[in-house]
């Protein structure tokens, strides 16, 4: 499994309120949520993002509320992967559960700038910065998390297991 795209770079403590403000939580439609993704931190994000693009951030990405609407909005906006120095734990869990690939890598978070072209290999955890020609070793997912992501989320994973 791989991701490849242009980077949107953010700092520490990007909270779920700025990822998807609560004023839009009266909807749970992924496409509608995607139109407000990152609105309170980066108004231009939704206009600039292309399918496959990658979010890179510093510490504690996704802190705050447990709203699954946050990773849902990011995934529905077309983002293929989020790389951060660390993730808040509920966001981490939610991202895996809905099948949004995320990867912790402090070195990558420091060595990647806004606008860089980056490639991620989820099996090996290798992150390649094509713009700068640098490579970073991120934490590869444990097998069971990879299985959940490959199935497209926890529910599909449970369904597939039940069928077997």
């Amino acid at each position, binding site marked *: 499994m791989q991701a490849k795209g242009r980077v949107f770079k953010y700092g520490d*403590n990007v*909270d779920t*309120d*700025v990822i998807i*403000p*609560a*004023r839009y*939580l*009266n*909807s*749970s439609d992924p496409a509608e949520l995607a139109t407000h993704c990152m609105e*309170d*931190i980066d108004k231009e994000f939704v206009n600039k993002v292309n399918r496959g693009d990658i979010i890179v951030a510093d*510490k*504690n990405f996704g*802190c*705050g*509320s*447990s*709203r*699954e*609407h946050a*990773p*849902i909005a990011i995934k529905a906006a077309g983002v293929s992967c989020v790389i951060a120095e*660390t993730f*808040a*734990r*509920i966001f981490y*869990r*939610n991202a895996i*559960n*809905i099948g949004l690939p995320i990867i912790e890598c402090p070195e990558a978070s420091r060595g990647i700038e806004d606008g860089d072209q980056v490639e991620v290999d989820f099996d090996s955890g290798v992150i390649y910065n094509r713009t700068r020609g640098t490579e970073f070793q991120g934490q590869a997912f*444990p097998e*069971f998390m990879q299985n959940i992501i490959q199935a497209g*989320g*926890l*529910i*599909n994973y*449970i*369904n597939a297991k*039940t*069928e077997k």
Partner: protein
Amino acid sequence: MGMTMTQKILAAHAGLDHVEAGQLIEAELDLVLGNDITSPVAIHEMDKMKADTVFHKDKIALVMDHFIPNKDIKSAEHCKCVREFACRHEISNYFDVGEMGIEHALLPEKGLTVAGDVIIGADSHTCTYGALGAFSTGVGSTDMAAGMVTGKAWFKVPSAIRFNLTGKPKKWVSGKDVILHIIGMIGVDGALYKSMEFTGDGIKNLSMDDRFTIANMAIEAGGKNGIFPVDDQTEAYMKEHSMRSYKVYEADEDAVYEAEYTIDLSKLEPTVAFPHLPENTKTMNEISQEIVIDQAVIGSCTNGRIEDLRTAAEILKGRKVKKGVRCIIIPATQSVYLQAMEEGLLKIFIEAGAVVSTPTCGPCLGGYMGILAAGERCISTTNRNFVGRMGHVESEIYLASPAVAAASAVMGKIAAPEELGL
């Protein structure tokens, strides 16, 4: 190697004699919680599963509290979806208008959460029930869906930080000041993925409402859960509110903690978290500049319980909210509301020029009932002061205790009760 209190509860619910930090386990759940924002997403996920029954109709709690009474058509549709689901599956603990309250104040009050439980909730402040000696943690909607169907959830066993609390807090220093002090000390990711275990002889000087407030904000330090040992006060609370049997777990003497802090409660001062992170704390005596406010909110799952309202009333009694300041007081549950009425607190609030609302999460997350305009400033007893949390991205939230919020409402600027001669 010994286990922490959290590890012991998780081990017991996973059918294991021993667990270690980092271990992946599957645990049996005593309660699965959702609200009107997170449950519709979970119900949608459940529809995708091939299972059409829930694991236990009495072990699921659905609380309509964020946008109700419904603020608009879309939120009404969400509540309708949950209401129909609750009806279809005969969910006994479904709480709608008239019975509802803010979930984390409501569930302990209804006796649905007791010591020794493992609880997941699709709301980040689910960690509140740690005040009762339960393991409880916030999850997302998909985990909630899987929990509703299977009665189980996977967890990575957390390591822990121990907070040894000693001494007795001064007048006007509450659980809110304790937890703001801790978050200021360790930061918003200071307990990331970890348990925050509170111990020490100072705990006896903290009321149950104080402990709920402290455990509630464990998530604001990134914690997986916050947990208190069970003492006489806890047992008295559970006996008063719950018919359920409970189980008391204690940390082993040789339990391993990643870090330990000792906090003398008698040395703490009323504390305020400045925009835009709960870790930006200052004690009242460290604030030199005048911070004029437009709004004061007293309520939420953090500080909408009866003691919080009593404190606010003690300050507002016979005084007036400063002209130009909107003071919004939100009892967390119907029962708190009723008690506040019987104790005459509502009269004090209304005579002071505050408004009293039906229970709702409303303004805390910028839903409704007190949204801020650009450039406006609010002092609030809620739990987050992120950019745009209560409204416009150019508004500001200062987090504080009910005592400081009430005193500030009277003064029209951030103020300690002492400034009113109290």
